[in-house]
Structures are given as structure tokens and as C-alpha cells.
């Protein structure tokens, strides 16, 4: 009898010092050192690094990549279209993480491997929804691979957010929402736009990325860049990256009330340690059910988990779903605590 693993004796993807690598296609996936050919899942800093010769990404993601990496040789590909390097067919498929984010499918005619990058299964008005891609081997993230991570509905969260916002404006405090400036900020703004005619003020880092989103036709709520002339309490929500907590940026809006939108906010102790008053559980990653669902829908017989709670996910797959799973150490997601 042939064991499950022996089918993939010659792996299509291996790990090299530069990152995940497909020898047959001579291409790296989200390399963390400069290489000749980089296939990029999305523009977050731990996945997209500067210095490589050629970049490939999904159509819709090249704007953010340029914004992040500067002027580079970037070839965008429409979702689902394949191109060939070596004997390998390569295609990008929606990952639902942020604008232009993709899973990467590699097919050498012998087996199909899919690298998910970061992804989520919940709806997001700023990017194309995740599409399951059948494969033999799945390389998945595992940021939130614990059953305690299950995301509430956006309707419920936005109700809470609006109530919190109004409450603090009534009490003469500026509501400040801390969230990652690429993706989460625009998702929150698009959700605000869908439900209200409210407007926001944003930190410079968010403003730059907002423009890229709007160029791609994403509908954000009315916003303006917070400037030196903004003094005192703002009745607009202020959206800024988490790094501004405790910085002079917030002083101009004093007194402020801090909230954070992140999957980590699910645990009370994490929120309190970050000295955040209010947490909204919103994540651009798959929750526990989303991860399990994705593994099952892929029909993969071998799974590798790259970052996050990899031990938990692989043990669960091995012991309870009878799917061969191993950990694959990478440099992704190393900025733990910041939900990218």
C-alpha cells in the first residue's frame, strides 16, 4: 500500500534561506531575501519585501505593492489566469485577505500545490472573496488556529462600534480606532460607508493607502487626513495604526478614547495588556472554523502550516481529521500582536 506522503516524494515547494521556493519554476513565494523571481501573495511587510528582480502578483495588488516597495518590475495576473515557468503552471486565486491578495497555485502536471498566504473566509467589501482551490498539498497560515478564535458578524461589530463612537463623542472624547493601515483601515471605512454617512479622519499612513484603494474603485467613507490644524475633540472617528498609541499624533485630539480592531481583541487579557479600552473583534485572517473549512475544501492530503498556531493546527489535522500535516517554519507573521 502506498502511504499518503510518498506521492509527493519530490516536493514542488521547499524552504530555502530566502523563503519558500519552487525549484522547477525557479520562483520564490513571498521571499524574505532578494531573489530573481518573487511570487507575492499580498503587500503586507512580512510577505512583500523589496530588492528582488521580478515580482508577480494578482491583478489589483500591483498598486499596493508599488506603494510599499517603490518602483519595481511587477507583472500582475488576473485571478485564475495561468502562466508557465519551467514546467510549472502558476496562477493566482482570491484569498480575501486584503485588496489584491492571492493564493498561489502551482501545478507541474504531477501534483498541485497551493500556498494560501494570509486569508479569511468572512465577507470584505474591499477585496474579492476567498475561493477554495482543490490541491494535493496545501501550505496554509495558522495565525488564529485555536477554537477560541471565531469571529462575530460584522453587523454586530459595527453596531457596537457606532454605539461606542457616539457615546464618547457625547462625553466630549475623540474616538480613536487603532488598526493596521493596509487593509483593516480600508475595510472598516468601507463598512462604515455601507451603513452610514459618517466620516473619519485618518493618519498619514492610512491616507496614502486609501488613495490606492480608491484608484481601484473601492468605495470608502468620506475621509480627510488628520493635520496639524485639527485641534481638540473630533466627532469624526480617527483611524490610525497601533504605533500611534502614546505618540504626539493623538495629543491634538485630546482627550481621546482608544479602541482597537483586531482578532487578538478576542482575549480580554491581551486587550488590557495593550492598554486598549475597547476592543472590536475584526480580523483579516481566517478563524478556527475558517481554517478547518479551508483545509477540508482543498481536499489536500498533505498540509503544511507556516505561521501562527501551527502546532495546534497540525496536531488537530493529524489526530482528528486524519490529514497528514506538518509545520513549516517561516518568517511570516513574526510581528505577533499586530494583526495584519
Amino acid at each position, binding site marked *: 500500500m502506498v502511504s499518503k506522503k510518498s506521492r509527493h516524494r519530490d516536493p514542488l515547494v521547499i524552504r530555502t534561506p530566502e523563503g519558500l521556493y519552487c525549484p522547477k519554476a525557479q520562483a520564490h513565494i513571498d521571499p524574505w531575501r532578494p531573489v530573481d523571481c518573487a511570487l507575492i501573495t499580498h503587500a503586507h511587510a512580512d510577505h512583500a519585501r523589496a530588492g528582488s528582480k521580478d515580482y508577480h502578483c494578482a491583478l489589483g495588488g500591483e498598486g499596493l505593492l508599488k506603494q510599499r516597495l517603490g518602483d519595481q518590475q511587477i507583472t500582475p495576473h488576473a485571478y485564475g489566469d495561468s502562466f508557465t515557468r519551467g514546467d510549472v503552471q502558476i496562477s493566482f486565486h482570491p484569498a480575501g485577505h486584503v485588496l489584491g491578495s492571492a493564493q498561489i497555485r502551482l501545478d507541474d502536471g504531477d501534483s498541485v500545490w497551493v500556498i494560501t498566504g494570509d486569508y479569511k473566509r468572512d465577507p470584505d467589501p474591499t477585496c474579492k472573496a476567498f475561493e477554495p482551490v482543490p490541491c494535493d498539498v496545501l501550505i496554509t497560515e495558522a495565525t488564529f488556529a485555536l477554537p477560541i478564535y471565531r469571529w462575530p*458578524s460584522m453587523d*454586530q461589530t459595527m453596531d457596537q462600534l457606532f454605539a461606542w463612537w457616539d457615546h464618547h463623542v457625547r462625553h466630549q472624547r475623540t474616538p480613536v480606532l487603532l488598526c493596521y493601515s493596509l487593509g483593516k483601515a480600508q475595510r472598516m471605512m468601507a463598512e462604515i460607508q455601507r451603513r452610514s454617512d459618517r466620516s473619519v479622519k485618518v493618519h498619514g499612513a492610512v491616507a496614502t493607502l486609501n488613495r490606492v484603494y480608491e484608484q481601484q474603485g473601492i468605495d470608502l467613507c468620506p475621509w480627510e487626513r488628520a493635520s496639524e490644524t485639527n485641534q481638540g475633540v473630533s466627532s469624526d472617528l480617527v483611524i490610525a495604526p497601533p504605533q500611534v498609541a502614546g505618540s504626539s499624533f493623538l495629543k491634538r485630539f485630546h482627550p481621546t478614547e482608544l479602541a482597537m480592531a483586531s482578532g487578538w481583541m478576542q*482575549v*480580554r*487579557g491581551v486587550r*488590557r495588556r495593550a*492598554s486598549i*479600552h475597547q476592543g472590536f473583534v475584526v480580523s483579516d485572517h481566517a478563524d478556527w472554523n475558517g481554517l478547518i473549512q479551508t483545509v477540508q475544501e482543498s481536499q489536500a492530503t498533505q498540509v503544511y502550516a507556516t505561521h501562527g498556531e501551527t*502546532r495546534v493546527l497540525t496536531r488537530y489535522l493529524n489526530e482528528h481529521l486524519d490529514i497528514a500535516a506538518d509545520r513549516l517554519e517561516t518568517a511570516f507573521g513574526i510581528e505577533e500582536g499586530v494583526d495584519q
Partner: protein
Amino acid sequence: MNFVGLFQALDTSQSTNAKRDALIEFIRHADVLESAIAVQALTGRLEKKRLKPSLLKYTANQAFVETPWLFEECYATVGDLSETLAILFANPQAKPQTNAPILQQWIERQTTLAGLKPEVLADALLAQIQEFSKDEAFLFLKLSSGGFRVGVSKGLVHEAIARAIDMDRAVIEERLMGPFVADRNWLQRLQEPVTQNELDARPLPFLLANPITDEEIAALNPQDTLVEYKWDGIRAQLIKTDQTIRLWSRGDQDITEQFPDIVDSAVTLPSPIILDGEILAGTPCQLQSFHQLQTRLNRKRITQSLLNTHPAFFKAYDLLRFQGEDMRDQPLAARKAVLETITIQQSPVLRPQRIAEIAAMREAARDLGAEGVMIKDRQSTYGAGRKAGYWWKWKLDPMTADCVLIYAQAGHGRRANLHSDYTLACWNNQDELVPVAKAYSGLTDVELKAMDQWIRKHTIQKFGPVRQVEPLQVFEIGFEGIAASTRHKSGIALRFPRILRWRQDVGPKDADGLAHFHALMTNHHAL
């Protein structure tokens, strides 16, 4: 507003003022029975453990019967059993009810649940949790299993009550002593007219000492000072009125019930009187370690056999009220003169001529089981709080050792998910690392975070929430005492170990061996 609403307001505000305002608002406007039970819950007066933590754990294990390890992983990440269950099993669609009173109903339901047979209890509890929203489930479980904390102190709640009904804080403290009856009249009872006895039985604010600096020692005129040993016990005021004897600790706690032996010996004191001093373990002739006092504080009932095995006594060093007179405005020397006429154990006083005498007394402290010396200005009055230039403490240097980090575990509460609990080891004669101490604090937040990242990347093995790490990081630990122990693999037990410094300048081979600890044990009188 109900208790859930109050919790949300407290949990999402971090300034003490905002919390106090939320409490005042709640006490003024909530249903009076709801506020009565809420006060019990917030001040640790609620009958604890209607549902035991072991039962919560059993319920979780029933639900995770195929994957108990998965539940353990969840618990280790969340750091709180009730919160873990609430996150896992509460209804994510449910909206918390934050207005209508719920506590009375909850307590009844918990009592009903507690009365069920074990076979059906877990299912019934799980069904109950599934009806709740996350916040409700968390509070329901937290209240039922004891250990409820939401970042408000007992003192803050009492202060809020006093403000909400516009009463003197100390009188409210006095009236909240003893059994608290949670009924519809609780607020009314607190507002009755104040009696003389209540006024006399009020503890007074403690005068606290500042650590002394080298410059201050140099600038000291020894002839202006009185010097006493700094005793390692519980700072307390012993109060006697015509009707009552009370012991109050500095933490605003009435600890009278824990020390019936001290109350007995105070019967012969003149009254009314308020003495400031230290509760010490053992007898005046033979002191025992501070650890023994913990046992007294932790027991619900103090039995005669506990009094025999863990005796305690009161050592007085100041006199705050005497025969109806407030002594606090008199200079220390005058207060001491009166105190010396009263028959009670007192701390010996040195009236030094030279700094060297103070230093010599400090050197002698360890052998007596004291922590150092107190230097007090002879002319100082008895002020409230940490008054500069009144009292100084000059503590002994802690004993130290360099140890290697071998295990790390995530903390609880604020430190959930952050590896902040360290097990540290030293070398034995066979060149093996043996654990000598567990230490929880002493690093800055930045260092803790950096170490957390390091720990995650250098884990060799995981045992549930405990990570074994590569033995590479060295920390200097300080501790107050060292004793031989048969319970520890290393053969030694340290008192109050904590991390003093992260020794990034040395490697694991430079860490201390067991011989270093044995030398310390021989040189210092072990307590």
C-alpha cells in the same frame, strides 16, 4: 443599568476616576438589590465557589471529550477559565441585556445548578452558557466560581458608595465591616446617624517610610533620629474602644478575625487607644518567618490548633490616639515617651550618636529576622502617607545569584499570552541545571515583550502551557532568605525571589552553581 452594564463600563475605562464615576452612577440608579449583590461581588463578599473551578473544567472536558489537549491550549492562551468557557460556548449572536436586574436570578440559578447531580450538572451548565452572550457568560461563571476581579479595589467601591450617598468615607468603611446583608435596605442602613464608638473605632491613615538614598544617609544627623528594626510582618493598627477591639492592615482590611490571640492580649490595654505596629509570626522570644502569617490570613476559620502551630503577636512602635486624645500632632519623641508607659510588646529603640551605630544595627537585622532598619526623625509628627523626611527605611541588600532560564509560562490576566512566569536554574555538581526559583516580575514591559518573542522562537518542547526553552538567557535574581528544603530538587528554597536584571552580558556557563547558594545559607542565619 444592571451588573453587566456596570462591568462593561468598568472594563472599558482605565482611569480610576472614570471607574469611580461609573460605580457612583450605578449605585445611585440601579435596582437596590442588584447594587447590593454587585457590591458583594466587587468586594469579595459573595459566598465563593458555588460552582467549583474543577466543575468548570469538567464541563469543558465533557465538551472537548475527543480533544482535551485543545481545550488546554485555549485555556493557556486566554489565561482565565471562565473567559475561556465564555468565548468557546456563549452564543455569538446573543446581545447582552444591560438594563434589567439579573444578579438575584443568577445567584438562584447557580444555587440550583450546584444542587444538581454531577451527571447532569455539566450538561445543564453548558446549556446555560449557550443561552448567554459572551460578556454574560463570563460574568455568570466568574461570579459562581469566585475570584472575580475587574480592576476595582474594595476601597474604591467603598469610596463610591460613600460618595453616592454623600457620607463620610471612614464611617462607611466602619459600617461595611462585618457581615454584609444584601437586601433592599442596605443603602438605608448605611445612612443612619453616626455614633461616638464608630468615630473612635476608625483606623487612621498610615504614615509610610521612604527608602533612604546614600546621599540622605550622608546628610543625616544621627542625633535627630530614632532607629528601630524593620520587622518583616503585617503593618497594622490595633484599635481598642470601650466596646470593641480591631486590627486593621494597611491594605484597608479589617483582619481582626484572623488574630484572636492578639485581640485576647489587647483586653488589658487602656481605651480608647490606637497603636501602630507590626503583626509578627511566632513569639517575642522566637520569631517565625513571614510565610507563617500568610497561613493565618488565608484561613477562613482560625482553630485552636492553628493558634498553637502558628502563634502571632503585635509589636507596637507608635501611638496615634490615647485616652481620647489625638497624638498625631505631637513629635515622635513625645509619642514614644507615652507609648513606653503602656504594657505591650514594643520595638527596641536606638538613639544613635553616630551613623556607624545605625549601620551596625542594620547589619544585625538579618540575624534577628528583620529586614533592615527604620530611621525616624525625632521631631516628626504622624502625617498621612509617604511624607518626605519623616521616616526612612534602610533595608538589607537582597542576596543575589545569576540563574539560567529553563521554563517559561504565560501569565494570567493582564499578562495572558505573554510569557512572564520564569523558572530559573543553577548548575549542580554534575553540570546539570536544576530549578531554584520561579520569578514573575522585575522586567520592564519592553524587556518582557522582547523575552516573549525570544521564548517563542527558542522553545525546545511544550508541556501544555509551559515551554522549555534553550538554556541561554541569564538573569540575576534577588531574594530575602534561603533555607534548606526537602521538597525541592535543588535542596534549597528561596524567599521572595524576583528578577533584578537581565544579564545579557554573560552566558549560561557564567551562571552560579549550587555551591554559591550553600555558601549563602551558611553565612546567613537561615529563617
